[in-house]
C-alpha cells in the first residue's frame, strides 16, 4: 500500500516536472523564435519589435505626431478613440498634406529635417522619393503581424508601409432620370445607348483603371473605347459632378468614388441618387502609413498604425467617411457592399504602378485626349 502511494507520488512528480519543462520550453522556444525573427529581420535590415517592447516604448514616449491620410474632419474622433485605448499617450498632434505639390513639399521638408512627424502618409506616386531619402523606418510589419505582435490584417501590409484606406469605383445614378426598372447593374450598362450623352466619366482614367487587375489592360481599354463612343459627359472631380447628378442633368456616373457618393447620402438621405456596386468592383489601396526614420515617438506611431488598421479604428473611420474604410475589415461599408462581389485590388506596389499605367493608356489610347510624349 505504502509502495503504491509512493509510486503514484513519484509518477505525479515526474509528470509535473515534464509539464513544467514543456511549458518552459515553449516559452523559451517562443522567445527563441522571437529572437530568431528579430535576427532574420535584422539580416534584411528591418526592425522587429515584440508587443511588450512596443508598449513599453510607447509608455515612455507618451506623445505622438501623425499625418493621417483620411479626411480632416475625422481626425479628432480617431485621436479620441486612440487615446481612450492608450491613455498613456497623452499628447497627439497632427498635420494634413493634400495634393501633389504639398506632397513634394512634405518630402523636402522631411528630408531637410525642417519638419517633424512620427507617422507618415506616403504617396505611392512618389514612393521613390521617400525610399531614396530613407524617410521610412524599416519595420518588419509582415513579421510582426505574422508573429501576432501587431494585430493588422496581413493583406494591409505592403513592405514597410500599411495601407489603411481604400477607394472604390462604383456606379452612381440619378433616380430623377433613371426609373428603377432601368437601373444599371454592371459596368456594361454604362455602354447602353439609352444613356448616350448622359453618362458622366471622369477624365482621369484612374477611376476606371481600378478594375485592373480583375480585367486585363486590353479589356479595360476596349471598355473605355466603347464608353467614349457613348458620348459621355466628361467631368473632372467628384464634388463638382455630384450636384449635376442630384439635379438630374446626368443620369449615370460611371467610376464614381464610393465614399464621395456616400457622403452626399449621409448628409442628405433624401438625395435622389443610388449606388450600384458592379462586378468586379474596382478598388485601390490608399493612405499608406509608415514610421518616419527620425521619428521621436516610433513606438507610439506603431500603435497608431495598428489602431487605424484595426476593426475599432476602421469603424471610427467609416463613421465619418463611409466607404473609406478597408474592405478587409468586417463591418465597414466597403466590406458590406463588396460582400461576395469580386474585388479588383492590387496586392503589391508593382501592380499599383501597372494600374497607373493602364489609367494613362485609357486617357491617351482609348479616349484620345492629347498628351505630349505618347
Amino acid at each position, binding site marked *: 500500500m505504502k509502495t503504491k502511494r509512493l509510486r503514484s507520488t513519484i509518477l505525479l512528480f515526474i509528470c509535473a516536472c515534464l509539464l513544467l519543462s514543456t511549458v518552459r520550453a515553449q516559452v523559451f522556444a517562443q522567445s527563441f523564435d522571437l529572437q530568431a525573427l528579430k535576427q532574420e529581420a535584422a539580416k534584411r535590415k528591418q526592425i522587429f519589435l515584440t508587443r511588450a517592447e512596443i508598449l513599453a516604448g510607447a509608455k515612455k514616449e507618451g506623445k505622438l505626431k501623425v499625418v493621417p491620410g483620411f479626411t480632416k474632419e475625422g481626425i479628432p474622433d480617431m485621436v479620441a478613440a486612440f487615446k481612450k485605448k492608450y491613455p498613456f499617450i497623452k499628447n497627439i498632434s497632427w498635420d494634413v498634406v493634400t495634393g501633389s505639390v504639398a506632397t513634394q513639399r512634405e518630402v523636402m521638408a522631411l528630408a531637410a*529635417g525642417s519638419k517633424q512627424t512620427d507617422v507618415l502618409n506616403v504617396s505611392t506616386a512618389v514612393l521613390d522619393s521617400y525610399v531614396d531619402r530613407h524617410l521610412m523606418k524599416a519595420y518588419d510589419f509582415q513579421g510582426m503581424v505574422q508573429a501576432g505582435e501587431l494585430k493588422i490584417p496581413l493583406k494591409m501590409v505592403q513592405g514597410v508601409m500599411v495601407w489603411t484606406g481604400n477607394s472604390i469605383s462604383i456606379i452612381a445614378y440619378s433616380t430623377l432620370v433613371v426609373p428603377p426598372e432601368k437601373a444599371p447593374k454592371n459596368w456594361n450598362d454604362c455602354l447602353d445607348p439609352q444613356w448616350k450623352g448622359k453618362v458622366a466619366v471622369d477624365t482621369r482614367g484612374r477611376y476606371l483603371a481600378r478594375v485592373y487587375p480583375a480585367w486585363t489592360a486590353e479589356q479595360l481599354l476596349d471598355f473605355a473605347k466603347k464608353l467614349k463612343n457613348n458620348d459621355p459627359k466628361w467631368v473632372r472631380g467628384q464634388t463638382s459632378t455630384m450636384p449635376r447628378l442630384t439635379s438630374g442633368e446626368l443620369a449615370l456616373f460611371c467610376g464614381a468614388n464610393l465614399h464621395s457618393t456616400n457622403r452626399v447620402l449621409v*448628409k442628405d438621405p433624401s438625395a435622389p441618387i443610388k449606388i450600384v456596386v458592379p462586378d468586379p468592383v474596382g478598388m485601390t489601396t490608399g493612405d499608406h502609413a509608415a514610421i518616419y526614420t527620425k521619428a521621436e515617438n516610433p513606438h507610439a506611431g506603431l500603435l497608431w498604425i495598428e489602431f487605424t488598421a484595426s476593426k475599432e479604428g476602421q469603424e471610427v473611420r467609416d463613421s465619418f467617411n463611409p466607404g473609406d474604410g478597408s474592405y478587409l475589415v468586417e463591418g465597414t461599408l466597403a466590406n458590406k457592399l463588396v460582400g461576395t462581389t469580386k474585388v479588383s485590388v492590387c496586392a503589391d506596389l508593382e501592380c499599383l504602378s501597372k494600374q497607373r499605367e493602364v489609367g494613362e493608356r485609357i486617357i491617351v489610347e482609348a479616349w484620345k485626349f492629347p498628351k505630349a510624349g505618347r
Partner: protein
Amino acid sequence: MSEASIRVPITASVIQFFHRLFTRGATRLIYCAVMIVVLWIVGLPLSAIFIASFYSGSPLDPGPFTLANYVLTYTYGPTYQALINSLLYATTGTISGLVIGLGFAWLIERTDMPFRGLAWVLIVVPIAIPSFLLSLGYILLLNPTNGVLNVILRWCLGFFGYTADSGPINIYSLGGMLYVNAISGGTSSFLLLVSAFRLMDQQIEDAAMVCGATKWTTLRKVTLPVLLPAITVATIYKFSGDLNDMDVPLLLGLQSQVYVLPTLIFFSAFYSDTVEWGLATALSSPFILIAFGLSYIFYCVVVKNAQQQKYATVGGKTTQSRRVRLGKWRYAALGIFLVYFLLSTGLPFVILLWASLLPSYRVPSWEALSLVSLTNYLELLQWPNLVPAVWNTLLLGFYTGTSVMAVAFFTSWIIIRSQFRGRFFLDALTFLPHVLPGSVVALGLVFTYLHPALAPAGLYGTLFIMALGMMVGYLPFAIRVMNGSLTQIHKELEEAGTVNGARPITVMVRVTLPLVLPAFLTGFVWVAAHAFRSLTMPLMLGSADTETLSVILFNLWERDGDFSGAAALGMGLILITAGLTILARKFIQRAFGSWERK
C-alpha cells in the same frame, strides 16, 4: 594756410560726398534694393522651375540634363493647334474684357450714371468667388438639359413653337466656353482702367472741343490716346491671363474637343499622380515668349513715350474732371450694367446661394423649397477653427496687399521713371508668373523656401511665407496698375520736390505716392480679395496654425465632397470682400473727393 582753414575744405568735401551719396547714390540704392527684392521674390522660384525643365524626373529627384521636354513640346503636332486655339480664346476674351472694362470704367468714373458706388463694388465682388464654384454655377445655370436659365428660356420659347427638350443654350461648346470667358473677365480690366479715368484731366478734352472737334473725334484722338498706357496694360494683362486659363476650357471645352495649350499641359503633365513638372514648364514656353513680346511692346509703345510725358494728365496746374451728363440715357446705362452684372455674377451667385441652403443640390422648385435651411451655415459657425481661419485670412489679405503694392509701386517707378537699363528686364520678369501654370509657380516657391539653406530661417508654415509666395502671382497685376497710373503723373511734380531738396525716396513717398493713391488702393483691393480666396499658397506653404478660409473651403470641396457647405463658405468670402471693397471705395471717395465734379 592755418590748420583750421585746411579742416574746412576736408569737412566740406566729406559733406559733399555724403550729400552726393544720399541724392544720386540713394537713387541707385533704391534701384538695387528693388532689383534684389524682385529677383528674390520672382527670380528665384522661376529659375528653380526653369532649371528643372532641363532635367528629366521631378525637381525632387532630377535625372540627367536633357532637352527632351522642349523637343517634345515643339515636335508634338497638337501643340500648335492648341496654341492657335489659345490665341483665339485669349483674343475674344480680351476684346470683350476691354469693352466691358473700358465701358464701365467710363460710366462709373466719368458719367452721372446712378448708383455708381454700388456698381463699383458689384464689379469687384466676383473676385471673391473661387473659380471652381463660379464655373459650377454657370453649368447649373446653362447646361442644356436642366440648366435653370435654359428651363426658363424653353418655357418662354414654347409660346413660339420651341419644343426641344434641351437647350437652347449649350454651355458645353466652343461658344459656351467663349461666352463664360467673355462675361466673367471684366473685373481685372475694369480695375486696371478705372483709376486712369479718375486721373484724367477734362481740360484736355475741353481744349479739343473748343478747337471744333466733335465728341467722337475727341474720343478717338484725345481721350483714347491719353489712356493708351492703361488700355495697353489692361489688354496685355487680360490677354496673357486668358492664354493661361485652364478651368473654363477644361470644364466646358472637352465636350466639343477644343483643346487649348493649358488643357494640353493638364493632360500631358498633371493628369496622373506623377506630375511632369519639367514638361509643364516646357509646354508653357510659348507663353513665356509671348509674355516677353508683350512686355517689349509695352516698353516701346508706353514706357518710352511716358518718359517724354506724353500721357501725363496730372501736373502742377489744378486739374478738373467733370462728369458727362447722360441725360435720359442714365438709366439705360444702369440697365446695361445690371444686365451685365446679372449674367456675369448675379445669377451664378443666386444659384450658389440656393445651393448653400440645401443639403444637396436640387433644381429650384416648390418641392425643393421644403429642404431649404440654414444648416450649412450653422455647421460652418460650429467649425472649430473658424475664428482663427477668419483672422488668418484677414491678416494674409492685409500683409499681401500691402507688401505687393509697396513692391509694385517702387518697381513701377523704376520702369516708368528711371533710365535704369534693366527696367525692361524687370518688367518682363515680374510679368512671367502670370503666363505660367499656377501649380508650376507654386512648386518653384516650395523648392525655394524649403531649400535646406533657408530652412533655419524658420519661414516654414508662417503667414509671412504665404504672403511672400502670393506676391509672385499678384505682382503682375499690381505693377500693371501702377504702370498705367504713373504714366499719367507729370514729372514736374517730382522735380519740384527734388529742386526743393527732397531726397528721391522722399519724393516718391510724399509726392508721387499720394498722387497714385487711387490706383494703389484699387490694386490693394484686388490683391487682398484674391488673397482671401487663394488656395494654392495656403495649401502648400501653410500649416495647421495658419489655416485660412480658402483651405477650409478646399477641404469641404475636395476632401468632404460637400458642395453645399463650400457654397455657404463662398458666401462668407463674398461678404468679406464686399466689406473690404466698400471701405476702400469710401476711402477713395473721401480722400479724393476734390476729384469729383459737378
